[in-house]
């Protein structure tokens, strides 16, 4: 696709303007081959927690479906039931249970099944069992200290103290590290001598639309790729003013003190340039209408690339399910 063909939305001082020659994707007849030819994915940044990639040549409804599914329909594991045998601490039972539910777990949801309604206790295929048994005590050997850390034992309870109890043959497939809390340093509660927890925690597979704790992503969002064009040469003092109008790194200044657009990708698209009458005509700000810059931040259980693939598979399975039902009529 040529550069001039890319559909744009212009960002003007007070309004957003459509390209006069761009009728919008809604008017093009659907053709899978055309879609295939225009569709591209470029990975920009990717590690185990965060990734950035571009999806180009797709209808916003499809891009939005992927985003929505990542947030609320890709399954993950979280603590769902807390059996409180003893809780003599200050924190109330229900608040404690809620806090524990929000602790992200490392367990791979693809290795588990959804728990069936009738089975209360759960099986090794759908439930992870954890235990938190701690008691705060006063250290006898320490006398003159004002620090709670030295005079009390277990006065701060962290997620790392949650112990995994393998059910059935679970220990053959999983390990403490592969199913337990991702972060060991989440403070659950503070205690004083005599306070005690005796809890059994049951983690199950669930969906973000049921409760946010089941969402596998911290955030998943997209934005349209910004594009900035200079209409005339901007040099000298004006060039530095122009540079200040955009996000750092967007506008560069060459050896002749002339401004040039270095990289518009990470521009915040604030319209500060329009505050200066002498500069407002010098730039054209726009966004590419079918170029989606996705950012996916994982909570830690699944890699972001896996989360995206799972999201696409969820949408595919929705289609499959309904095709099957239509065929069976």
């Amino acid at each position, binding site marked *: 696709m040529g550069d001039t063909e890319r559909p744009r939305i212009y960002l003007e001082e007070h309004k957003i303007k459509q390209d006069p020659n761009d009728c919008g*994707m809604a008017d093009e007849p659907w053709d899978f081959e055309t879609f295939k030819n225009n*569709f591209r994915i470029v990975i920009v940044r*990717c590690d185990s927690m965060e990734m950035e990639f571009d999806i180009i040549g797709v209808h916003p409804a499809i891009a939005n*479906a992927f985003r929505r599914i990542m947030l609320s329909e890709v399954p993950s594991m979280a603590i769902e039931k807390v059996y409180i045998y003893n809780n003599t601490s200050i924190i109330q039972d229900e608040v404690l249970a809620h806090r524990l539910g929000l602790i992200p777990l490392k367990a791979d949801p693809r290795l588990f099944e959804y728990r069936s309604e009738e089975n209360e206790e759960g099986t090794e295929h759908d439930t992870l069992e954890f235990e938190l048994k701690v008691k705060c005590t006063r250290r006898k050997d320490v006398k003159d200290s004002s620090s709670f850390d030295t005079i009390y034992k277990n006065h701060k309870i962290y997620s790392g103290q949650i112990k995994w109890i393998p059910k059935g043959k679970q220990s053959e497939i999983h390990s403490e590290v592969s199913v337990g809390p991702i972060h060991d340093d989440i403070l659950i509660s503070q205690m004083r001598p005599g306070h005690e927890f005796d809890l059994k925690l049951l983690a199950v597979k669930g969906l973000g639309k049921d409760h946010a704790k089941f969402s596998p992503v911290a955030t998943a969002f997209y934005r349209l790729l910004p594009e900035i064009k200079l209409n005339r040469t901007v040099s000298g003092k004006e060039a530095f003013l122009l540079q200040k109008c955009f996000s750092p790194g967007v506008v560069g200044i060459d050896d002749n003190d002339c401004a040039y657009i270095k990289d518009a990708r990470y521009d915040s698209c604030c319209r500060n340039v329009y505050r200066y009458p002498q500069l407002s005509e010098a730039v054209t700000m726009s966004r590419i209408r079918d170029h989606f810059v996705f950012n996916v931040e994982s909570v830690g259980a699944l890699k972001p690339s896996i989360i995206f693939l799972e999201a696409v598979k969820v949408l595919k399975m929705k289609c*499959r399910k309904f095709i099957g039902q*239509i065929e069976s009529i």
Partner: protein
Amino acid sequence: MSFAELAGDENSGEHARTFVFEDEGHTLGNALKSIISRYPDVDFCGYTIPHPAENKMHFRIQANKKLRAIDILKRGLEDLEAVCDHTIETFEKAMNDYNS
């Protein structure tokens, strides 16, 4: 059954129907609409969630008189599935390129 037809179209031929999807929302509704409304033989396609407290999505298709709405819906779902398949394929290829 998580899929049904809304009453009211029985006498007007098979080209127009409102389908009721249970436990679906904007995610499937809008994605499917964006494809089906671009078929040349579809006169109208739209979706609504009649009440936010009910997990139901109404999906309306009004097609050319010669066609059945249900066939259009099936074609739409198959096209959306093909889009998903192609996305998976392209993404995996892009990941391989990035890692190599």
